[in-house]
């Protein structure tokens, strides 16, 4: 891997202004066709120091997601803390994929040590592993969260995004050797398991998660704003669904764990999600689907760290 330059940002960027920039950039790209896009990621990592937890935002997050109101940050909340830094990488002019058109397809989190509400944190984020995919181009956004005065990474997240369309030129097609679905994926033909929970998600679900996460991507807010981006209705944030599944697993997950999710069909709002939790050797697998159509929305697992 090439050496990445580290650039320190004075504070965690505002997601709202990043979305504003991204929308403006998409509009510019529509008006003025750019030259050939270089299939190369910016060789930079953004770092923000002295990141502190807003206690009232943490409480609101815990209440909305069904997490216990402790002083230990839920792994999904650490994602919320670090997400704007990763977004800032994707919003750069030299980022080769259009931010507004990208789909969050998978997320991997390692909670290596508990993160506490009083911790002063450092967040680092960069993009890596740009690769061609059957239906477009994929990229991983890596976020690491550590204590400001320590070298240890407490939390590490890898978010995989897909930009649909023709893969960028010059990228190798990275797929499983046998061309089948990625490791950990679910056989789409397998019968649905028993229901362990049923989420009734109101039309305001996206707005409520936006309130606690700061992620006001218009596709999640109202059906009108979602329509502008090609969705028939507002869709739930993928990380909202994954984080609720994590909360449902509860303390059985332990203090440290690996938390994986793969997103399939988006959850249209309002709507219902049937959830299954299946205890496995040392962990829990979860699956969310539409109880009416049987179509899978997401699948994942919470496992002890190796």
């Amino acid at each position: 891997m090439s050496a990445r330059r580290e650039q320190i940002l004075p504070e965690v960027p505002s997601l709202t202004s990043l979305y504003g920039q991204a929308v403006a950039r998409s509009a510019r790209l529509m008006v003025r066709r750019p030259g050939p896009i270089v299939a190369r990621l910016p060789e930079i990592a953004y770092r923000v120091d002295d990141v502190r937890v807003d206690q009232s935002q943490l409480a609101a997050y815990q209440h909305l997601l069904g997490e216990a109101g402790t002083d230990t940050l839920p792994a999904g909340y650490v994602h919320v803390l670090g997400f704007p830094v990763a977004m800032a990488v994707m919003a750069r002019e030299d980022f080769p994929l259009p931010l507004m058109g990208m789909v969050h397809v998978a997320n991997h989190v390692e909670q290596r040590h508990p993160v506490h509400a009083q911790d002063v944190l450092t967040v680092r984020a960069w993009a890596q592993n740009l690769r061609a995919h059957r239906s477009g181009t994929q990229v991983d956004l890596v976020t690491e969260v550590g204590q400001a005065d320590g070298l240890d990474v407490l939390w590490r997240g890898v978010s995989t995004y897909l930009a649909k369309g023709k893969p960028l030129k010059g990228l190798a097609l990275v797929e499983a050797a046998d061309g089948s679905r990625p490791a950990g994926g679910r056989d789409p033909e397998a019968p649905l398991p028993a229901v362990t929970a049923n989420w009734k998600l109101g039309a305001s679900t996206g707005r409520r998660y936006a309130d606690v996460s700061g992620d006001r991507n218009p596709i999640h807010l109202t059906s009108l704003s979602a329509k502008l981006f090609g969705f028939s209705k507002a869709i739930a944030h993928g990380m909202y669904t994954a984080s609720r599944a994590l909360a449902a697993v509860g303390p059985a997950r332990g203090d440290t764990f690996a938390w994986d999710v793969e997103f399939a069909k988006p959850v249209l709002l309002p709507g219902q999600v049937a959830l299954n939790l299946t205890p496995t050797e040392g962990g829990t697998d979860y699956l969310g689907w539409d109880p009416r159509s049987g179509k899978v929305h997401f699948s994942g697992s919470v496992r002890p760290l190796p």
Partner: protein
Amino acid sequence: MPSNSSPRRAAVIGSNRIPFGKAGGAYANATNLDMLGAALSGLVARFQLQGERLGDVAGGAVLKHSRDFNMTREAVLGSALSPQTPAFDVQRACGTSLETVTAIANKIALGQIDSGIAAGVDSTSDAPIVVSDRLRRTLIKLSRAKTLPDRLKLVASIRPGDLAPVAPDVAEPRTGLSMGEHQALTTLKWKITREAQDEIALASHKNLAQAYEDGLFDDLITPYRGLVRDESLRSDTSAEKLAKLKPVFGKGLGEGVATMTAGNSTPLSDGAATVLLGTDEWAAERGLPVLAHVVDAEAAAVDFVRGEEGLLMGGAYAVPRLLHRNKLVLADFDFIEIHEAFASTVLTTTAAWADEKFMVSKVGLPPLGRLNPAVLNVAGSSLAAGHPFGATGARIVGTLATLLSRAKQSRPDGGPVRGLISVCAAGGQAVAMILEAA
């Protein structure tokens, strides 16, 4: 009491409840406090406790207004008991008043008190409706705001959507599934048939109606607001009528597998029940009878959140552990009371007791064997009587103690006459108790 002996056993002296009403029925305008007060006053009158300072009173409700934070003490203050009688509130979902009986019995057994009342109440007609979290938080901030501009700013922040009231529902907070939906999954897993469930429901109505005819409740119930019998009781129901009802739970589980109807599921109810407990000496001093003694109790809980066990299967764990500790088997009981949250709860619980694989692998105890249906819910249970959540345990203790006392009188030279209670509760819980005729 000598300090080196095992604790004395608390005596069940008597009980009193009001007839249970249907949601929105006879008690539509009665509050939890009203109903608890009515049941308590009936008990005080029946046992001439006017002016008595009792050791303690434990009561509780599942759906409770925040203004009722001290509900049981308020009920005591509104009764003819001495105002010096202390009281406290308890909540263990549908096991609430089996838990209050346990609490009072334990205090008596330990010698801390020599008399007490255990009670429970619930109203689904007068359930607390609350405002949305956003509005509630804004109103709290508003009450703390010091300046007019601050207040106006807060008022302006209220959105129309914040004004929608929020009613409580019987869904489990962690799963979003109602109890019926949860039990439908368990029913399917244990392959319980519609016919078996309807049979339980029919027996409940027939047995409760017969018990009224036999005068069993003459000394157990005080009429209230025009009700003299439980409002849900249908003495004229039949297997045919029950078979006609359409399934209401489990409809999403596949073609033709839904078996739970309004007939074999408990109706939403209003009501209150009380039990008078004390030492044998306390009862004797006042010329009061002793019907039975509280032998032991056990609470259990299961992991339903991750789907490892059915929500209402706690009784499949509580009862085997309780019997094991007391070196008893099912055949040692003349009466077995299993709360009919749903007819299928009774069937899945008893099926689990008899299932060797389940018992050994999940409970870690030998199977209990088959239940003799002739000893099950002989005076009817919640399907016919109704199920005001907090009141059910006290209803069962009062009824069972009377049944035990009558059975003992009919064979005075026989061995011990025992009764077993199992009540499942929200949150994957259950409470079980053993009573023995005095």
